[in-house]
């Protein structure tokens, strides 16, 4: 009310016969000043909102073998994940044509359907029925919406929204793979299926530029469940003193495994895709010289982060190990006694990062055993069955 009255007083002023005041005299000057300030603010905001180029890996087309509608074998297709008008889209191309067979622009959202944010993370192909042919895709957009889309050689099916991990600080820049997990009976909470899939995502903070690793469970029956929310993921960034000294308690384990997933701040920027070795995630991160607008380079300080895949708990006495530099790829190295070591392999030298690697063991939530690489190639007998013809 008061502001309205003030406004009317201001509006009524020019109608009076008084000579023009200083406000009217310098009006154009003040207006142009205000406009330029507004433009500067918009420009600053757009600079802050835009993400640096180094956040994004080049969107390479991916070759897939997909099921054809006829009984002939799988057909070769190329999957592109591009942006159009700043909205993420998937397109499927045949190998011999530049005309897309199908494209997906509209995605289901929590309330309705609409456009996706750009796809920084490349979609992960899945073979849900283990017949050797890709039949589903998991796509994660920049804001953290995760969709599951059936795919065939002819095009895309209807998508489901698996998760809406939208958060004011985190943007999802890459995917570190989808992993098939089987939990042994003693480590499984009631009601949790023995087999499920975990999708590993890399999120980056728009305020600090640091990365977080997100492990999200893909529900087996996704059509009936509500999309997973970021708040339902367990924050495992800090380990309690008890967990450091006595290990993960059974109750903590069951709570984490029963939840939708976990996430951990890495206090640095990932310099290469994380590797999962025997149930342990190894991530190489640059811990200095990065910000929200600049990415770290090889000259920064580097470290290795190791954590348990299922609980993000401790595998070794500590999570973090120092790397001398960030040059080269993390590789496994087989020692003379068959044990494994992690080395940073570059052209000139191999830097030993961690010797006597451990793998997780199903005896207890934080049990480990020594990883032996000489057990490979390893044979698993999935099933032995008797074929019967006729009755005896």
């Amino acid at each position, binding site marked *: 009310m008061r502001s309205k009255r003030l406004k009317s007083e201001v509006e009524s002023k020019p109608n009076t016969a008084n000579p023009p005041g200083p406000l009217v005299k310098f009006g154009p000057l003040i207006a142009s000043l205000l406009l330029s300030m507004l433009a500067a603010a918009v420009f600053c905001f757009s600079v802050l909102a835009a993400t640096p180029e180094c956040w994004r890996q080049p969107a390479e087309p991916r070759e897939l073998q997909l099921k054809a509608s006829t009984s002939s074998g799988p057909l070769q297709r190329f999957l592109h994940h591009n942006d159009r008008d700043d909205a993420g889209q998937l397109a499927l191309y045949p190998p011999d044509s530049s005309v897309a067979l199908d494209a997906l622009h509209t995605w289901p959202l929590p309330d309705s359907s609409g456009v996706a944010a750009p796809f920084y993370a490349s979609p992960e192909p899945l073979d849900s029925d283990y017949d050797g042919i890709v039949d589903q895709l998991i796509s994660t957009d920049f804001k953290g919406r995760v969709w599951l889309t059936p795919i065939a050689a002819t095009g895309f099916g209807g998508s489901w929204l698996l998760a809406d991990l939208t958060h004011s600080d985190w943007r999802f820049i890459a995917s570190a793979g989808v992993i*098939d997990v089987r939990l*042994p009976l003693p480590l499984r909470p009631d009601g949790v299926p023995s087999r499920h899939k975990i999708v590993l995502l890399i999120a980056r903070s728009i305020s600090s530029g640091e990365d977080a690793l997100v492990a999200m469970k893909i529900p087996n029956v996704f059509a009936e469940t509500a999309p997973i929310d970021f708040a339902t993921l367990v924050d495992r960034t800090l380990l309690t003193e008890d967990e450091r000294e006595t290990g993960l308690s059974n109750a903590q384990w069951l709570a984490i495994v029963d939840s939708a997933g976990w996430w951990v701040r890495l206090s640095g920027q990932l310099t290469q*895709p994380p590797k999962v070795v025997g149930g342990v995630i190894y991530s190489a991160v640059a811990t200095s010289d990065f910000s929200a607008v600049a990415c770290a380079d090889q000259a920064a300080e580097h470290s290795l982060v190791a954590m348990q895949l299922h609980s993000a708990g401790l595998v070794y006495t500590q999570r973090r190990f120092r790397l001398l530099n960030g040059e080269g790829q993390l*590789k*496994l*190295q087989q020692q003379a006694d068959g044990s494994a070591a992690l080395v940073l392999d570059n052209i000139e030298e191999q830097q030993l990062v961690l010797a006597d690697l451990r793998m*997780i063991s199903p005896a207890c939530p934080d049990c480990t055993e020594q990883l032996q690489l000489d057990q490979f190639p390893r044979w698993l007998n999935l099933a032995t069955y*008797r*074929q019967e013809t006729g009755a005896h």
Partner: protein
Amino acid sequence: MRQSGMALISALIFLLVMLLIVSANLFISQMSMKSAQAAQRQLLFEQRALALHLNSVSDATSTSSEADFTIISRCPASYAVWSDSLIKCDLLTLATSLLSDDSRFAASYSSMLVRQQLIDGEVLDAE
């Protein structure tokens, strides 16, 4: 009276002869022993077929050629999981069958074996 007595005696003699013939037949053919052992023989045969199959499974893990394998897109789910970029899996389906010496029994077993191996170039050898 005498005639009916003769008929009874001849009938008894006939029955006796028949009994002798049947019991001799049974004794010679050992039918009751065979029927008593049939179930056991079948079990033994099944066990022999399974032992043969398991032997060939252990042989296959060392001698099978690459052509026998079917490449599967993903490794089966496990607890201590590996990244897809580090490990690959192949599937081997192995079937054996055994026919008994007298061709009366046949048993066949099949196994699905997964071979997990590290992808070349991902694992370095110690110098």
